[in-house]
């Protein structure tokens, strides 16, 4: 039985395909269209999913959309009405898009896929999120927490779920029995600060998280004027300070600015005592200013973490569950996740790696299969490599076509060379297998470097221009050694660590060993690597470990600034040429910048990473 899940028209359009409950393929549309955060109908992602299974749309038993358009339409009408006349612009714009497109979702799905309407289903936005986490987790029962900007009405939902693994009397169930509704949204609160700190909403939230360790949470009280959190974690925004509910342009208003001061310019340099210690050639006023922004970032981060923790504690008390499944955009806050793992009341925490709206596509399909059809569980999601693969033949054909000089080597020889390059402080573009599901590069579309010296951070940064210093590089560490390097207990068993979904303290003794991937405050957003689900990546890091004694690599996503992570060999090659990456690895083919010659002199040199 084939079920296709689809999410689109808000941000991050995606498609995911299940075959008898097993994930066949899942991908975000942006990787194919090369438009970052593309929200258009995911035609190419759907095509890819169907192709992966070797089927056509006619073979689909169901297509499930990840939210309920009518409910959402109701919310938009109500919130526009509630804020008349300020909402006039928003209303006008919304009505045009709703009546030309969003309202006719069913028509669109039927038309695009050529399916009879009775095979088109709709799942609730937060139930899609919940299913994307719970039905990928290995648990039989779990508490559920979904957190995002807004779905239909809900912004935060909690509840309890049980899974049918074939044990007698079990059945699949997700009950979201408590919720917080629009406009009271933790996600939108965080986004307001994201905008105020000069980053792009829906995209720059993790930069706020990265900036936070540079500051001290001095302004928690001020933040608490915006959000009132009850002891059970339920919260209420003071809408006096916000305009996201009636504006398409602004998320916060002048009252917010009166409280926190003028917003940070997106172009301004981030300079504090921590980034430029001591030296006084930089205007100290700039330092003071940036220190203030960092302090505010730290404050909103702390409030977010504590709110999530409060919700978690109440949820555990209420459900008595040992396990927690989380999804929704806010569940990508890896610092908060780390605290939930360490300080939270749950024994185990599971977060969907595509926690944002793209994950809703997978969740909607899982919801239909396990809840609507009541089929028992068959699989857990053990890795995130569900995208398109380009095997050696395809890479070979590409290189031939382009006339690029390359070297084809078997793995052991290849990795020897790569380790050699890494220790020589060269930057590697690493492309293999199926691309990742979700926003993180996890070793199939990564840029790799040696994490052992502080200088390497500078090296990568000098090749990766315009990167703010508060944006850390992630350490990819062999699962076997993770406890040596990080203090959070049981990281080897922790699913979040596989998906770069939590931040942990680096062991004090190791902070100087891997300075390039140790963020300010001695933390790292690690990824554990297991041979079982990425043997080549594991082998490479292992070989690097044998050569250096440090089984850790610096890993950052393989893309040019402002672009989605690369998908095809062509994308990878373009990025390689357009940046100062030294060595490109496409499966077993090695391309060296020095061998390229003038023919491939880049016409545009962009910055890597975003």
């Amino acid at each position, binding site marked *: 039985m084939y079920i296709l899940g689809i999410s689109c028209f808000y941000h991050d359009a995606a498609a995911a395909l299940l075959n008898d409950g097993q994930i066949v393929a899942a991908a975000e549309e942006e990787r194919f269209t090369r438009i970052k955060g593309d929200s258009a109908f995911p035609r190419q992602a759907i095509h890819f999913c169907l192709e992966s299974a070797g089927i056509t749309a006619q073979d689909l038993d169901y297509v499930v959309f990840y939210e309920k358009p*009518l409910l959402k339409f*109701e919310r938009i009408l109500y919130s526009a009405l509630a804020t008349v006349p300020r909402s006039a612009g928003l209303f006008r714009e919304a009505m045009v898009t709703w009546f030309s497109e969003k309202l006719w979702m*069913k028509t669109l799905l039927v038309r695009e896929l050529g399916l009879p309407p009775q095979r088109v289903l709709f799942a609730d936005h937060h139930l899609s999120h919940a299913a994307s986490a719970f039905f990928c987790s290995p648990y039989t029962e779990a508490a559920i927490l979904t957190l995002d900007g807004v779905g239909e009405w809900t912004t935060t939902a909690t509840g309890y779920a049980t899974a049918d693994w074939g044990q007698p009397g079990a059945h699949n169930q997700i009950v979201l029995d408590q919720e917080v509704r629009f406009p009271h949204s933790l996600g939108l609160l965080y986004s307001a600060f994201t905008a105020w700190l000069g980053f792009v909403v829906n995209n720059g939230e993790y930069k706020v998280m990265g900036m936070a360790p540079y500051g001290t949470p001095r302004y928690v009280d001020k933040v608490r004027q915006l959000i009132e959190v009850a002891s059970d974690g339920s919260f209420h925004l003071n809408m006096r300070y916000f305009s996201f509910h009636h504006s398409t342009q602004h998320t916060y208003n002048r009252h917010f600015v009166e409280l926190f001061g003028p917003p940070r310019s997106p172009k301004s340099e981030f300079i504090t005592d921590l980034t430029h210690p001591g030296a006084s050639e930089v205007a100290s006023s700039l330092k003071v200013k940036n220190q203030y922004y960092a302090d505010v970032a730290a404050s909103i981060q702390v409030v977010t973490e504590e709110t999530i923790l409060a919700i978690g504690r109440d949820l555990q008390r209420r459900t008595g569950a040992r396990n927690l499944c989380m999804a929704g955009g806010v569940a990508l806050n890896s610092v908060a996740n780390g605290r939930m793992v360490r300080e939270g009341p749950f024994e185990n925490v599971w977060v969907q790696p595509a926690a944002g709206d793209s994950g809703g596509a997978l969740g909607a399909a899982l919801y239909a299969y396990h809840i609507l059809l009541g089929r028992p569980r068959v699989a857990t999601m053990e890795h995130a490599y569900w995208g398109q693969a380009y095997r050696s033949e395809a890479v070979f054909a590409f290189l031939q076509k382009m006339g690029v000089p390359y070297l084809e080597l078997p793995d052991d020889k290849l990795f020897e060379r790569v380790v050699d390059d890494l220790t020589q402080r060269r930057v590697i573009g690493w492309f293999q297998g199926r691309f990742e599901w979700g926003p993180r590069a996890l070793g199939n579309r990564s840029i790799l470097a040696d994490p052992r010296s502080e200088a390497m951070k500078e090296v990568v940064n000098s090749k990766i221009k315009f990167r703010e210093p508060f944006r850390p590089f992630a350490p990819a560490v062999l699962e076997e050694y993770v406890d040596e390097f990080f203090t959070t207990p049981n990281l080897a068993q922790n699913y979040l660590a596989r998906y770069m979904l939590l931040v942990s303290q680096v062991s004090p003794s190791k902070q100087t060993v891997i300075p390039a991937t140790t963020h300010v405050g001695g933390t790292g957003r690690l990824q554990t690597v297991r041979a079982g689900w990425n043997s080549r990546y594991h082998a490479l890091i292992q070989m690097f470990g044998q050569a250096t004694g440090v089984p850790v690599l610096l890993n950052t996503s393989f893309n040019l600034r402002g672009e989605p992570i690369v998908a095809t060999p062509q994308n990878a090659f373009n990025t390689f040429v357009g940046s100062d990456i030294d060595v490109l690895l496409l499966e077993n083919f090695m391309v060296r910048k020095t061998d390229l010659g003038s023919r491939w002199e880049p016409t545009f040199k962009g910055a890597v990473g975003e």
Partner: protein
Amino acid sequence: MIRKLVTLFLLLSLYVLLSVFALELGLRLFAKVPPTAAPGFFWRTPDPLTGWSLQPNTSGRWYNAMYEFDVEVHVNELGLRAPDSVGYAKSPDVYRILVLGDSFVEAVQVSFEQTFGQQLAELLNDAGASIQEDVRRIEVINVGTGGWGNDQQLLWLRHEGHKYSPDLVILAFFPANDYMNNYMPLEFANQQAIRKPWFEWAEGQLLLHDFPFDPEKTEPGRQRMRELAAPGFAVSTAETTVNPGALQGLGEWLHQSSALHRYLDPRLRAASPNFASWLATTGLIEAGRETADRAQGSEYIPVAYGIYADPLPSPWPEALVTTRALLDEFKQETSQLDIPLRGLLIPAAEELLPGMWAQLLNTYPAMRMQTWSIAQPAEQTKALFADAGIPLLDLAPMFRQQLADGNALFLYEDRHFTPVGHTVAAYHLARWLVQDPTAALFSASAVPNVLPVAWGHLVWRGVGWIVLALLGISLVWSVYRNGPLNWWRNTGLMLGTTGELLLFFVRRQNFVLLPLVIILLLFGGLLVVAQASVVGPFIYTLF
């Protein structure tokens, strides 16, 4: 809790107050609202000759509750709605036309110059109309009083009219109530009193009663009328008195001081007579016709509409006979004066406007239980005039034509002619008198065409056609683009979604949003049709 409720209450009150204030201001600025309560018939006076007539030397401003007009009414010293210069004496070069009638000739809904009589004079003069060899100035005198029947008109002509040395008499006949007016048993049922001298057709002759009229001496006639009162149109002898509601003072004060009250009052009565009569019991609005109607019970049908009943019930045939006899009297009076007599058939609003008739059925539900012939009064009248040998002009066909062209000829609340209605009547009357072989009295060049063109209406109709054409084109285009099968399926799905959407809002009891959603869907439908089609750019500018 209590504090919260009090705050809520205060906020709500403030909201209501502000809304009322805003409405009041908006109405005063932009809407047509009468400046005070509508004045009564200040120009009417009892009269021994006709029962009632126009009060000599009276002037004043008159308008109705819906403020459909606002007119200076002036009555000269002879009791005519005419300039003071008009007297009995007639200068030799003047050809004088007397137009006899009721409220349609009184025409206090339009200015004196706009009455069809005055427009007729102007048209004939412009056309250089002349009789025989000498060209003379043509003068028209309106002789009409609201509520008059042909009996009163006859009495006036007999005792007053000849003093004016008329050259032509035009009898404006209004079948919708003239038959009733002419026959006292029906008029009594209508007015519940004898208010004028009246004729009775008995043994081949017309007997005149209560003449000259003295209200103190009508008791014998009154008794007889009660006996004669027609079955089926039973006269309710109980006077309909309404106890003034407790809020009467407030209601009156509001009506005097608030434009909002004066604006809503007549519209409310028209929209929901039941609610209005309930409201009248509180005193917030004055008890009006709707209250009196209600007091008559659910079987009530006003007497006047009996003329439309098919077959004509008793005693209406008697009214026809009496009227026929009155027509002979008119002929006799005019032949004694040696002048011609012409008839003008005035159409009723409910006869020409289906909406008005429907409204009648709505107001008097008992009417739905009977059969009606809307054309009957006019047909009867034409037969009667033909039988009497009086040339008659039926305005109905011309009015129908003008109504179809989008001209408003009747006032909605008042039901008399609009200025345009008067123009149409005058133009056709002038043409008839000049050109029609059966009635022509004048030789003249062509009567100048003054028929109005309803430009606004034509423009809207044009826009309507263009929109329809564009929609048609886009429909064809979208069918062509998608292929008929796909188009059919997509349209079906969209209609399905639309239905789902409406059901969804109903099921969630979102009734507040429903009107908005429906309007949006209409616009949305346009948007969908417009997509990828030629109309797109035009429709997008709407947003």
